[in-house]
């Protein structure tokens, strides 16, 4: 890294920029106001010649800070990919000429817009430094797999195949998890007609034969500390013997627990041994071998069985599960087939509300069940009554709208699953948050990972006890970097999906440990080398950054200062936005880099009738939405100045108050959707920003400014028309309420 900053500003004249803009004027501005050391224009900057011109300046002229005045930062990233320099992009194409009409009237304001973006880009790069990895951790290829069910086993086998040693920690005495209790599994390949072998034995054999896989049975993880690339885990056996080992990444495949059927007294569970759960029926079939399956109560060969789907599930009753567990319909079809195979002429009735057989072959399997004579009845079972030697099932037929009764030998309850996701870290009363660094670490037996993270011992949950993992954009990716959730701990699913899930999670875990070794970020900013640091002298130990970090990346050191773990960080900057004393920064993204952009824009006099609207747009969704608006020929106000931010969570309120003090007439913040169905790439960033901005009214009041001047929106990537509308509405609002009095 060169000691002196030498700024090179390169202005493109291609894509109509040369015709629409006065590039000579922009060149003058870059030199005089932007203080760029080298300023050049090029007819076609992103072609080989243009790129070579910049590279030559880097190599021969010592240019190390680059301003590219061309298209949006989302375009031509591969062409303008220069190493070991700080780059700032002035968005003259999507941000200026494409969203402005090509008319003589608009020429003046369009040129002003372009000039401002050049000023802003020069100001930004002036305050950027060239990021470099911290070197906090090296390459550790070992993978810790928590849970030895089929997801865990798949993960270990896949990791080993890819050349990464895996260690499985299994709580029970054997591998296989829930699938080991099954007689057969739902078919996962064509023709999807019959139950097939579980494959557990083959997987166990593969693991035993693999020297790259270590298995700890009867063991739990009693302490996990560190970060991707340098996790340290204590693995403790039932007897108390502890092994400590280091790992690069973790896959949590801790599976599920059956819903407790004792909570369903209406189905006579517990009152008679002839009402069983799906898992108990598997045990009965196993016991019977290939012979006929007999009832537990009197040993009678079962001649009729009725399956109650959604027992205690998909219901808003107290104590019931609100969700569909995803596997039980197919499992009931499978068990009905197994019964029919063993007990000739056994009547099998499946009482369903909505039959759901996920997966490519699900429908074929359902059809196969029908062909084999399994009866499917769309009905709601209300009660099971044991009556001399048989069971009377009362139900309401939903097709015929009729109350009916059936008399059967056996009732099977499809009860569903509850994720084994450990302790609820949001429950502050529990002994699971804020490890006091001065105290000794106490193990919590309910916890899966026993993380020593300041934010809590386990993965944060989103809803219904499932580990939070962005299921639309980034499945497996939890809110703890380097720890990937696979299988039903993440969302309800069946075995086929769990295997797929485990494979995906393992690939992500490998990527994570490789990235950690080089100090690069993982999703959604893969390859980013910058990481947050703080100025210790300024820190007031308020701990807001440690609390607000969506990924729990920040711990507390012995002196109670925040302790940043580079490889746990996703580089969203939420800590930077949170810090009340503004001492947290990234090398290339800081309070200064954005703050100086805001200040660098030219502020016309109040009577020029040229208001200024600052748009702080999330670079993941809102900024692309604005770019797309430009591509689609929409137009927005020439008074807007858009500044991309990593996440709305990184917006420090100082930017807003500085902008208001500096004379901006309106401020628009564009982030992502923030509720339970959030779309924020950093999960909590947008939520944090919305909370912070709800308090901006005080600032406005002290400045005697109207509340309408600052507005926060949730924008999806598809909302380009809306972004345009929002900006234009802000212009109208300013016309109504008048210009800001703070222009100097």
């Amino acid at each position, binding site marked *: 890294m060169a000691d002196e900053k030498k700024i090179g500003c390169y202005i493109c004249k291609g894509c109509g920029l040369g015709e629409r803009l006065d590039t000579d004027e922009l060149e003058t501005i870059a030199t005089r106001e932007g203080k760029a050391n080298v300023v050049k224009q090029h007819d076609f900057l992103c072609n080989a010649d243009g790129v070579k011109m910049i590279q030559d300046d880097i190599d021969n002229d010592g240019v190390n800070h680059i301003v590219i005045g061309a298209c949006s930062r989302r375009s031509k990233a591969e062409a303008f990919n220069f190493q070991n320099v700080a780059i700032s992009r002035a968005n003259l194409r999507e941000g200026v000429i494409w969203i402005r009409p090509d008319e003589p009237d608009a020429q003046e304001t369009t040129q002003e817009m372009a000039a401002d973006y050049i000023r802003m880009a020069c100001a930004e790069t002036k305050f950027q430094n060239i990021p470099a990895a911290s070197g906090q951790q090296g390459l550790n290829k070992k993978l810790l797999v928590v849970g030895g069910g089929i997801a865990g086993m798949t993960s270990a086998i896949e990791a080993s195949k890819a050349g990464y040693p895996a260690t499985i920690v299994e709580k029970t005495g054997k591998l296989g998890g829930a699938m080991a209790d099954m007689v057969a599994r739902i078919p996962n390949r064509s023709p999807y007609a019959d139950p097939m072998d579980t494959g557990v034995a083959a997987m166990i054999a593969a693991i035993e034969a693999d020297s790259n896989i270590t298995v700890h049975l009867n063991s739990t993880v009693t302490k996990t500390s560190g970060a991707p690339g340098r996790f340290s885990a204590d693995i403790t056996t039932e007897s108390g013997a502890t092994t400590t080992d280091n790992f690069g990444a973790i896959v949590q495949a801790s599976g599920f627990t059956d819903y407790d059927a004792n909570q369903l007294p209406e189905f006579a569970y517990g009152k008679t041994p002839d009402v069983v759960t799906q898992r108990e029926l598997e045990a009965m079939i196993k016991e019977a071998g290939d012979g006929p399956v007999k009832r537990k109560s009197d040993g009678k060969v079962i001649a009729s069985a009725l399956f109650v789907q959604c027992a205690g599930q998909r219901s808003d009753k107290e104590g019931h599960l609100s969700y569909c567990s995803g596997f039980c319909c197919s499992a009931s079809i499978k068990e009905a087939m197994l019964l029919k195979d063993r007990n000739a002429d056994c009547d099998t009735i499946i009482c369903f509300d909505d*039959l759901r057989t996920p997966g490519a072959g699900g429908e074929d399997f359902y059809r196969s069940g*029908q*062909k084999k004579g399994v009866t*499917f009845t*769309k009905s709601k079972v209300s009660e099971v009554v044991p009556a001399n030697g048989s069971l009377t099932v009362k139900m309401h*037929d939903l097709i*015929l709208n*009729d109350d009916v009764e059936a008399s059967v030998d056996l009732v099977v309850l499809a009860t569903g699953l509850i994720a084994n996701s450990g302790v609820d870290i949001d429950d502050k009363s529990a002994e699971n948050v804020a490890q006091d660094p001065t105290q000794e670490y106490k193990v919590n037996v309910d916890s899966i990972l026993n993380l020593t993270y300041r934010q809590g011992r386990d993965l944060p949950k989103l809803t219904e006890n499932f580990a939070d993992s962005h299921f639309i954009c980034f499945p497996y990716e939890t809110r703890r970097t380097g720890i990937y959730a696979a299988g039903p701990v993440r969302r309800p699913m069946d075995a086929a999906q769990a295997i797929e899930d485990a494979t995906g999670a393992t690939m992500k875990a490998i990527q994570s440990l490789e990235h950690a070794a080089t100090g690069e970020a993982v999703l959604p900013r893969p390859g980013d080398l910058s990481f947050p640091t703080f100025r210790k002298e300024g820190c007031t130990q308020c701990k807001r950054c440690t609390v607000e970090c969506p990924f729990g990346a920040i711990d507390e050191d012995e002196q109670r200062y925040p302790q940043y773990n580079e490889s746990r960080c996703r580089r969203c900057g939420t800590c930077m936005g949170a810090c009340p004393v503004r001492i947290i920064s990234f090398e290339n993204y800081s309070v200064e880099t954005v703050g100086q952009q805001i200040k660098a824009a030219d502020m016309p006099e109040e009577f020029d009738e040229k208001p200024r609207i600052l748009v702080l747009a999330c670079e993941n969704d809102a900024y692309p939405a604005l770019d797309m608006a430009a591509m689609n020929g929409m137009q927005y106000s020439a008074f807007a100045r858009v500044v991309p931010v990593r996440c709305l969570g990184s917006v420090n309120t100082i930017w807003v108050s500085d902008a208001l003090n500096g004379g901006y007439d309106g401020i628009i913040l564009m982030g992502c959707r923030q509720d339970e169905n959030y779309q924020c790439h950093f999960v909590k960033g947008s939520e944090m920003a919305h909370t912070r901005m709800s308090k901006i009214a005080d600032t406005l009041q002290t400045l005697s400014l109207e509340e309408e001047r600052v507005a926060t929106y949730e924008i999806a990537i598809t909302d380009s028309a809306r972004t345009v509308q929002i900006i234009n509405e802000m212009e109208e609002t300013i016309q109504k309420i008048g210009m800001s009095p703070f222009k100097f």
Partner: protein
Amino acid sequence: MSDLNTAMVEKYRSNFLKEVEANVEEGDWVKMCMQCGVCSGSCPLGNAWEHPPQEIFMMIRAGKRDEVLSSSSMWMCTSCYNCIVRCPRELPITHIMHGLAHYAKRLGLSPKEQPTAKFAQLFWDNLSKDGRVNELKLGLALYFMNGFGEGIKTSLKMKDIGLGMVKTKRMNVMEILGGHSVKDKSGFHAMLKKAAEIEEAKIQK
């Protein structure tokens, strides 16, 4: 109750689905219905049906034997084939409806005053006599299906059309005296008898 009906009740006990599978044309498809209701929604006469096809299938599975067989529903089918075309499970619904109607008729359970059923009987009686449909007699039989007074009324209403048809030689009044028949009438009757025997044997097995 017919003897056959009693025998069938005896044979299949409570399992009406099995009875349908064994005795109704395309009846083994009934179990494949997934209750989506597309057939009921597609039927142009759906509103007029006592039980739309989806419901009929569910009733068969629920063992509602009498309700199904004495229902007028399957007699309402006009064979437009909309349901067959749309059924995601590819059930031959039209054929099953006709199969059910046929089976109900055989057991003597079909509704007595159902016009389609009545017309079907008239048509069969007319056709099986001479091997040719006597359109004049069939038409008149249809007019008088619901009593003498109604018959006269309908005849008067249709008078002009009838005369027009006679004028354009579309209808021969002489047909009333017996009409034309197939060349080998006894052979035709022998064929019908044999067919009835084969079907009888099929039911009995």
